[in-house]
């Protein structure tokens, strides 16, 4: 009796722990169907209305904030992924001076609390006299994404077999051709993972954004501002839709990876 109890304890706990993690997500999803008026706190009945008319509330404020977040996320992701991938290749492939200083410079942004990063950039923009708008948010997001791109892509570069590139050179490929036809395609999964991570970090960032956004509203900032007077159900709709989309992307990536692993095992 005692043994079977011990055997079940861990799986049961793990399932309960995951259920606990899901509670606010399920709550947010359910309340996206709430037939609420101004604030979305008490349940007033089921409706599809909010899903069908997401952009109609407060003159489209929710959708405006959402599209700002998408634009900022896209630009910051492209910039951070480019800069970070270049650094990752250099770190794994080349010898250079100031190596440990470079590692420290890459590690520190991840070890600094966001409120310090945000206040620091805001203090700099203030002293230089740069007005806060979309651009300052993008500059801030690119900054904190670079380090995460470097750690993600670095692992991929390190696992890349240099013999493949040598073969390309032996067959008279120019350095550009070798990079475009061999190195880049092999690094692509790592680069894509880094880009997804950057986008997720940028899209959900509030703390740094709040210090550097001026009058521009991103989706998280919209929620923060509206929290005092109640958040319309439309915000739940946007968040739930993003959640489902992200879940689909991750699950299909997992499924295709495991399918590929099975195919490789067969060969």
């Amino acid at each position, binding site marked *: 009796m005692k043994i079977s109890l011990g055997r079940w304890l861990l799986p049961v706990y793990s399932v309960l722990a995951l259920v606990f993690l899901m509670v606010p997500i399920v709550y947010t999803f359910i309340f996206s169907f709430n037939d609420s008026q101004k604030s979305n706190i008490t349940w007033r009945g089921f409706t599809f209305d909010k899903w069908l008319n997401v952009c109609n509330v407060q003159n489209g404020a929710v959708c405006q904030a959402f599209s700002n977040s998408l634009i900022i996320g896209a630009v910051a992701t492209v910039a951070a992924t480019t800069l970070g991938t270049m650094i990752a290749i250099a*770190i794994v492939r080349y010898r250079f001076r100031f190596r440990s200083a470079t590692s*420290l410079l890459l590690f520190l942004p991840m070890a600094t609390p966001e*409120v310090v990063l945000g206040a620091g950039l805001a*203090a700099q923009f203030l002293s230089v006299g740069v007005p806060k708008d979309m651009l300052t948010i993008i500059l801030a997001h690119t900054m904190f994404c670079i380090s995460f791109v470097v750690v993600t892509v670095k692992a991929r570069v390190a696992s890349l077999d240099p013999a493949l590139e040598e073969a390309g050179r032996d067959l008279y490929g120019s350095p550009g051709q070798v990079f475009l036809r061999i190195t880049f395609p092999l690094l692509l999964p790592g680069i894509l993972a880094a880009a997804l991570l950057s986008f997720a970090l940028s899209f959900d960032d509030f*703390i740094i954004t709040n210090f550097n956004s001026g009058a521009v509203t991103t989706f998280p900032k919209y929620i923060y501002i509206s*929290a005092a007077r109640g958040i319309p159900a439309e915000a739940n709709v946007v968040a739930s839709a993003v959640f489902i989309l992200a879940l689909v992307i991750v699950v299909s990536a997992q499924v295709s990876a495991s399918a590929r692993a099975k195919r490789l095992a067969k060969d």
Partner: protein
Amino acid sequence: MAFAAFATTTSDADQAPRRKSPVALLLLLPGILYLVLFFLTPLVSLLLTSFQTPIEGGDIGQYAYAFRWENYVEVVTAYLPHILRSFAFALTATVLALIFSYPLAYFIGVTARRWPLVQSLMLVLVIAPFFISFLLRTLAWKQILSDESFIITSLKAVALMAPDAHFTGTSAAVIFGLTYNFIPFMTLPLYTTLERLDTRYLEAGSDLYAHPVEVFRKVTIPLSMPGIVAGTLLTFIPAAGDYVNASRDFLGGPDSQMIGNVIEANFLVLQNYPAAAALSIILMTVILVIVMVYVKRAGTEELL
């Protein structure tokens, strides 16, 4: 994932032969320059701002560069409770998240090894909270645990809670929110080290007649130390600087404000930039010292 990188113990030094080439400089320069411009110099301007003095006869928010070190004395006297509270909250949340995450990460990484599909499905559920806005998750908890909510009214009905007690707005609620929000940051690095744990070591321990508790304490925990260090840092650092959970519109109240709330209010509302900057410098310094001491004692310096 980045979390895996945090938890790896291999250093860059012992990898494939490396060349010296001007290409390296071309690859490094743009990104490094970017970080110097938008990470390093902002820290310098934060430091300079923290010593600024108000312009005489100037408007609110107008300051001149000076060396007014009294700013630090003033913010520490005024906000010492907030500073101490931030580190106490962050520490409590980190310990709670570790206790919550370890069994879960052990199950996914060790017990569930035989079923890769279960393993990957559970991992997706662990990171699922990342896919929904951090602020909405916190607000959801605020409503789930509000005074009128089912949970709180039932707790009061069975006298587990005093009839006039509240949960939201208290320090406990802020710690709860911090713990919940940073659990994935704890679970993932724990998982990545436990997943690589060689279970033959555990068998060896029990073959030598060690009690399961002893095997756990002397074998499992030391072998998962890199994950514990990475997870606690990834939880503690953002938790100490957080100001969303403790915000009064979220889970906090007047007696549970953290240093982040004070920095935000001073910078964005009161326009007292030197006070906000001085508090930021204090927060960053204390965290860096804690991180360095902790990493040294835990013996995983490769993390840097």
